[in-house]
């Protein structure tokens, strides 16, 4: 398994042709207290960059984009009952959805963990 990161502060964990997508710890920290996550339905297909989910914090709504193209195979139902999971465990239990990759080559344009750490440092 390997983990990638996007400039929109998403992490993408790839296992075979399935990618698990969430927002990074840096992103949840910037958003503040998360009170609702609107997740995509199973079977929905995205092109890279499509609006995929919406995160509502106390102060504002923010879009989450599909970091890669694919079809939604699962959404994290735990976030419905406990959206604050994204604050407490953004990069593990607070995952958003799983995609079946339709263009695995797109992964090449994403960052590694160390490159993302540098990217965040420069913000």
């Amino acid at each position, binding site marked *: 398994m390997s983990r990638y990161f996007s400039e929109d502060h998403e992490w993408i964990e790839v296992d075979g042709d399935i990618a698990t997508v969430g927002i990074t710890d840096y992103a949840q920290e*910037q958003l503040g207290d998360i009170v*609702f996550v609107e997740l995509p339905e199973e079977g929905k297909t995205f092109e890279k960059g499509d609006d995929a989910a919406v995160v509502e914090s106390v*102060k504002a709504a923010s879009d989450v984009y599909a970091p890669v193209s694919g079809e939604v195979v699962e959404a994290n139902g735990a976030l419905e009952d406990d*959206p604050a999971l994204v604050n407490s465990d953004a990069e593990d239990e607070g995952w958003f959805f799983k995609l079946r990759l339709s263009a695995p080559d797109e992964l090449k344009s994403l960052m590694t963990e160390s490159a993302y750490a540098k990217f965040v440092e420069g913000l």
Partner: protein
Amino acid sequence: MSESQQTENTEEGTEIELGMLPLDAWHRAQGGRMVGFAGYHMPIQYEGIMAEHLWTRAHAGLFDVSHMGQLSFTGEDVDAALEAVIPASIASLATGRQRYSMLLDEEGGILDDLMVARRPDDIYMVVNGATKYDDIGWLLEHLPDEVTINLMDEQALLALQGPEAVTALSRLIPGVEALYFMQCGGFDWNGHSLWISRSGYTGEDGFEISLPAEAAEAFADTLCAMEEVKPIGLGARDSLRLEAGLPLYGHDLTPATDPVEAGLSFAIGPKRRKDGGFIGAERVLEYLADARGMSRVGLLVEGRLPAREGAAIYDENPHPIGNVTSGGFSPTLQRPIAMGYIDAALSEPGTPLEIEVRGKRIAATVASMPFVPHTYHRQPAAPKGGSQ
């Protein structure tokens, strides 16, 4: 997620340089996350909006509201001159008393909302930060030359709000505990002159403190060293005022809204209603007798998805009956709440409605405001018909 640190985008899309308030360095030292607001760098949050909100409802929160405009009015016949422009009763305003009022245009549209108080040597007014320069221009245009307006930009303005505010502030400044809601007076702290009113924008008991900018940092440090007090950012200020049902200028109040539909008729006293004589009076008196048909209401939103500003509100018919003007998640009630304008015929609390959020209809119910009860320290009503 990418709020600019240096500039603020205006509605016209141009960037303006942000100003620095007296407590700028202090906020940063406290871990405040700074954003552009009303033309200044201001803290949106320190430890988190939810925690800060709940702290204020349980203890005492210190807010920096130095971006607001503090105005002093002096001169011959200043009372009559102000009454000729704003709908507040100034002549009957005793020294040490404060009232809520508005600036209205000729059509009765709201240009700003404000607090006005009589001090021993002037009339003191606090207006919104984002509108203060427009307000001054408008006031200069409409007030006679005999009245002098001074923008007190050498003063900071802090608010201490919450059930423990009186305990904390009276420890520092004995005597403030004797003030009732909407009363105010001059006090001294370490040789600095402070003007303190018992009022605020959270629905809680609390105080607003005008003090010299050079004293602000030491004063904030002294308060925050107390176990009751933490600094609170703009984020929680907004969620607190929303729970308190208090309108926010530029969102819930605009030149397109009038005081009657906004639910602010209380700010126009009996004498002003009878005699008029303020800018916009003709329209406002007409609306008081026969309202225009919209009404500002509270909305309890079902589920967990917040309905925010701009969302359309529906009854069972296909056309919207109004719009959300402020909305968000209520930390106290742990559910989304909103405020908006709807057809007054549907404004009865309990009326079931729907709000459209990103193409989905969400159930909502008209609710009486405040959503969370006010806990103002009001002066007890004088007993009626008592013996001599």
